[in-house]
């Protein structure tokens, strides 16, 4: 691949600087002597004329920074050219550094480093959830997607706002208030519903007729519903009506979900949002042509949250994974958890650990089949549970004002508050709503006094800081206007609340210029670790003026990281830093990677998150990004990685056998999948990922006129052989000499993160051994050319495999500086500027001096001026 060497262009046009910034007697000579020959207006090597670049122009400034970096790294002038003396180079760097600092300070004069920014979609949703104690309220799916700048979507440069956003904020505020306000005197009644997996109108009942599963009673085939054999069951409806699926028996499935099979517990479709207790009982077995035998091990089933769309029929409705649950051999395992459910949501099921698209049951169906099965005894859903009534969401809005029935006769001239009829929207749902109690609403004897009191409670919480009396009066005036216009008290207050939730005070991060005040600091902390508003302890500390004290900041940081809400940070930060959000961007080729499954993919993501959490909790250093003595695994991943003795679906810390390269981000399957295209791997893509994401040295983008390399899945030519053509081109080699080595090392891992010594091929090649692949998965790929994971470091030296590469890379100081940079960019919502470099260096140095790891780094960052100034 050709790559214009921008470096030449940058370095050889330095004389222009003379005209733009304070000249230095030494520097012009340096640039004239070492740079002009390639990068002046005539030569424009690499397509760039540095003599026209103005250091105060934003784009040009960035280029000058790159020139500085190349110069500092000793990459320029190129080795083939006459080299400056050490003194000359140092002087030039010093001059350029000062020039850049001066230009940046001039540019920033009067401006804050972090721009005004709105809440991201995730921040908006979390803030609403925490503000109203509505833990699972879905909002961000309805809002326009956020942009991204400097790697993160919370960056001010990415957070513009349009009329679409505003329209959506109004809709969202209405939805939130609908959910928050109590409209009945008592909570919805708590119901308990036990559902068989073979519930009416579901997919499972259908496949049971065909022998993709069986009904089991006392761990034997249910005599009332014999397993399908040469004859299958006929007429699903007749079986449903006569109660074949509803007699308390268990359902054993042999089939993984697929495009035409979506197991749902559709008999419970949520009507009332809230917290529900979900229980299930699972076990596994080996089915042998009519007999139930001990299973091959612990299998795993997945429960997911499915949102029914349209009329709710069919499958493929949007879903999110709740969790994977163990199903031990012939032993029921009861699982119980609390889950927030929203209207139209149901629970979905998948026999996750079974082979996807596995062996068919054949003509004799279940009676001719031998293989693993997962049994589900039932699913029980109980709720909704409300700790108090009216709920906390309502009390945040209306305090302790009583609820009363609204009777028109008692309120002449007042419009009753609007109410939507609560109903079961899905025909398949057997749960029904309570009888509507009439129109119930808050009653106020002194509306304006109550409104003032309620607003003075709500507004500071919503705006995350004290609110002036003037602002409160502004909202109170609106309430007064609405009351005069004939609105009920609830409707008038709702008007003010909606306005507040659509105001800049709520939608934006309000931070003062310069040093952050205590409330802004509380917000920075909570949006960093929780992606949401500060809680009461944080705000109390802010109010007491204690939050800017070092020890308090430290203890609050630890408290926030310990709280379950910090998983939002782990998920959001990794989703962007390591691009985990793109994990499902490609579907691995079924012929080349038949063992790939959603369970494997979900496990990959969990591994990366759990590993980062372990780094946080144990305070591990940056070398653990690339080298480790432990891994975070479940059975699925352990089998995938060839690591023995890990059983079950839950991720846990596993000490690695000697010589294992697994564990760190560098060798995690998630990273390998994200950096592959589903069919084959490219050292360029993976090398660029390592340089950019782990080392903080993003390569220049490829030239537009160079086509991407097409993968050769026939196995005739390796990617390295194809790349050699590019690498042998001098104009390409300058970049590829840096990009390719990490990519070559990662050739040891295939598209889905499996270890390999030979490429898989669907054309020529040797028969492939099954290895760890499930025996129920058909294999048709072959083994093609051998993998060569060796390479040479740009800085000198070589490695023969991934293990040697890891050892060398673990020593790189760039790991630390990049980790610090990524955290700083994320935490402060702005790019680390050239003028911040010294501060960043100090962060890392202090962390290392203290012998600390990522936790110490985070503490240092939070205590730094970088974090505490806007």
């Amino acid at each position: 691949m050709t790559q214009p060497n921008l470096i030449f262009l940058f370095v050889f046009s330095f004389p222009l600087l003379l005209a733009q910034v304070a000249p230095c007697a030494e520097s012009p000579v340096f640039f004239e002597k070492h740079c002009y020959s390639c990068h002046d207006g005539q030569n424009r090597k690499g397509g760039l004329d540095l003599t026209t670049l103005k250091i105060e122009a934003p784009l040009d400034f960035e280029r000058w920074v790159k020139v500085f970096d190349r110069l500092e790294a000793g990459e320029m002038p190129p080795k083939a050219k006459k080299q400056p003396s050490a003194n000359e180079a140092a002087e030039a760097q010093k001059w350029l550094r000062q020039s850049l600092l001066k230009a940046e300070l001039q540019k920033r004069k009067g401006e804050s480093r972090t721009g005004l920014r709105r809440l991201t979609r995730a921040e908006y949703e979390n803030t609403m959830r925490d503000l109203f104690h509505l833990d699972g309220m879905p909002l961000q799916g309805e809002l326009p997607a956020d942009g991204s700048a400097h790697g993160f979507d919370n960056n001010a440069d990415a957070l513009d706002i349009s009329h679409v956003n505003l329209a959506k904020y109004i809709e969202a505020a209405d939805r939130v208030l609908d959910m928050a306000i109590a409209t009945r005197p008592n909570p919805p009644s708590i119901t308990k519903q036990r559902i068989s997996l073979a519930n009416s109108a579901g997919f499972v009942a259908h496949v049971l007729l065909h022998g993709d599963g069986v009904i089991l009673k006392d761990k034997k085939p249910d005599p009332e519903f014999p397993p399908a054999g040469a004859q299958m069951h006929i007429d699903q409806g007749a079986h449903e009506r006569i109660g074949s699926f509803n007699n308390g028996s268990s359902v054993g499935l042999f089939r993984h979900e697929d495009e035409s099979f979506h197991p749902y517990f559709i008999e419970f479709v949520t009507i009332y949002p809230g917290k529900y207790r979900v229980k299930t009982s699972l076990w596994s077995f080996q089915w042998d042509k009519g007999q139930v035998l001990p299973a091959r091990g612990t299998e795993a089933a997945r429960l997911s949250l499915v949102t029914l769309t349209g009329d709710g029929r069919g499958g493929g409705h949007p879903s999110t994974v709740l969790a994977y649950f163990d199903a031990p051999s012939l032993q029921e395992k009861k699982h119980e958890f609390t889950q927030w459910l929203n209207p139209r949501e149901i629970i979905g099921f998948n026999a996750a650990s079974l082979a996807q698209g596995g062996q068919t049951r054949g003509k004799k169906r279940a009676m001719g089949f031998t293989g693993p099965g997962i049994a589900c005894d039932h699913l029980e859903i109980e709720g909704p549970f409300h700790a108090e009534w009216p709920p906390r969401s309502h009390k945040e809005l209306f305090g302790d004002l009583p609820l009363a029935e609204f009777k028109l006769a008692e309120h002449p001239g007042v419009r009753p508050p609007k109410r939507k009829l609560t109903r079961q929207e899905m025909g398949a749902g057997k749960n029904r709503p309570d009888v509507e109690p009439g129109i119930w609403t808050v009653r106020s004897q002194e509306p304006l006094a109550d409104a003032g009191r309620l607003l003075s409670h709500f507004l500071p919480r919503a705006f995350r800081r004290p609110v002036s009396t003037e602002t409160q009066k502004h909202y109170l005036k609106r309430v007064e206007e609405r009351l005069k216009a004939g609105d009920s008290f609830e409707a008038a207050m709702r008007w003010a609340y909606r306005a507040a939730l659509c105001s800049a005070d709520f939608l934006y991060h309000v931070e003062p210029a310069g040093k952050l005040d205590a409330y802004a600091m509380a917000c920075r902390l909570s949006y960093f670790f929780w992606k949401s508003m500060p809680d009461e302890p944080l705000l109390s500390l802010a109010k007491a003026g204690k939050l800017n004290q070092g020890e308090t900041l430290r203890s609050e940081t630890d408290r926030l990281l310990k709280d379950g809400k910090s998983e939002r940070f782990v998920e959001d930060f990794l989703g962007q830093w390591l691009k985990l959000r793109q994990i499902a961007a490609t579907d691995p080729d079924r012929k080349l990677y038949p063992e790939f499954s959603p369970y494997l993919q979900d496990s990959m993501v969990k591994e990366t998150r759990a590993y980062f959490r372990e780094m946080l909790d144990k305070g591990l250093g940056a070398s653990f990004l690339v080298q480790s003595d432990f891994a975070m695994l479940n059975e699925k991943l352990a089998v995938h990685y060839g690591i023995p003795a890990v059983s079950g679906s839950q991720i846990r810390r596993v000490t690695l056998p000697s010589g294992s390269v697994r564990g760190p981000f560098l060798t995690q399957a998630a990273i390998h999948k994200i950096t592959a295209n589903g069919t084959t791997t490219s050292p360029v893509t993976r090398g660029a990922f390592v340089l950019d994401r782990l080392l903080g040295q993003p390569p220049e983008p490829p030239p537009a006129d160079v086509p991407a390399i097409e993968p050769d899945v026939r196995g005739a030519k390796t990617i390295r052989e194809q790349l050699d053509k590019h690498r042998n081109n001098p104009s390409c080699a300058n970049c590829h000499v840096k990009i390719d080595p990490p990519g070559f090392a990662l050739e040891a891992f295939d598209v889905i993160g499996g270890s390999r010594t030979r490429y898989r091929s669907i054309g020529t090649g040797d028969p492939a051994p099954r290895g760890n692949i499930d025996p129920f998965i058909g294999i048709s790929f072959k083994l093609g050319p051998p993998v060569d994971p060796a390479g040479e470091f740009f800085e000198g030296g070589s490695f023969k495999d991934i293990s040697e590469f890891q050892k060398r890379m673990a020593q790189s100081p760039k790991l630390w500086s990049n980790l610090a940079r990524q955290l700083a960019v994320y935490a402060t919502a702005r790019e680390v500027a050239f003028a911040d470099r010294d501060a960043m260096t100090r962060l890392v140095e202090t962390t290392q001096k203290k012998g600390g790891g990522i936790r110490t780094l985070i503490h240092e960052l939070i205590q730094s001026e970088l974090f505490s100034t806007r």
Partner: protein
Amino acid sequence: MGLPWKIMKSAVLAMVCLALPSLAETSQNVPLKITCQVTGLFAEDRQPDLRKVFGSIPSVKLIAIQYSKAEVTLEYAAKEFSNAKPDQVVKRLDDLVRNASRHALGIKPLSLTPREKLKLIEIQVEGLDCKGCALAAYEVVARVEGVERATASFKKGLITALVDPSKVDRGQLEKALKAREVHIKAP
């Protein structure tokens, strides 16, 4: 004499007026009996299911089941269907039974076709010994016009139909069964 008589007459009239509603009530509470044909009773072992269904309908009492004729004798209070015309009573009973049995059982009027005009057709079948499958096969046959009564048992491998030969023949029944993927044994 005139006055006492008048008083007495008024008193009697008043008593009659007072007594009328309770007399009407008494007539409404009179239990009525009815014999009907039952659908969904495709095998002898369905009788407990039928009893269970009637057990869940408090307004109707099951007096007797005549399995061989697929008939039931029921008792109900007249007031239960007071607003129904006589020909609607069976329909009302059918609704009750269908709702209580998830439409696996039902009630219909007695057949008007004399037994001697009906013909018994027996079809040998193969399938799973399963109530759901038997109900499905039964319904395939029972819904064919001209079929008065039917039974289905995959345990016995036999489906029977009492049919009006002027309306339906074996071929039509076999065709309907095959369309439902019921495997018919070769003779």
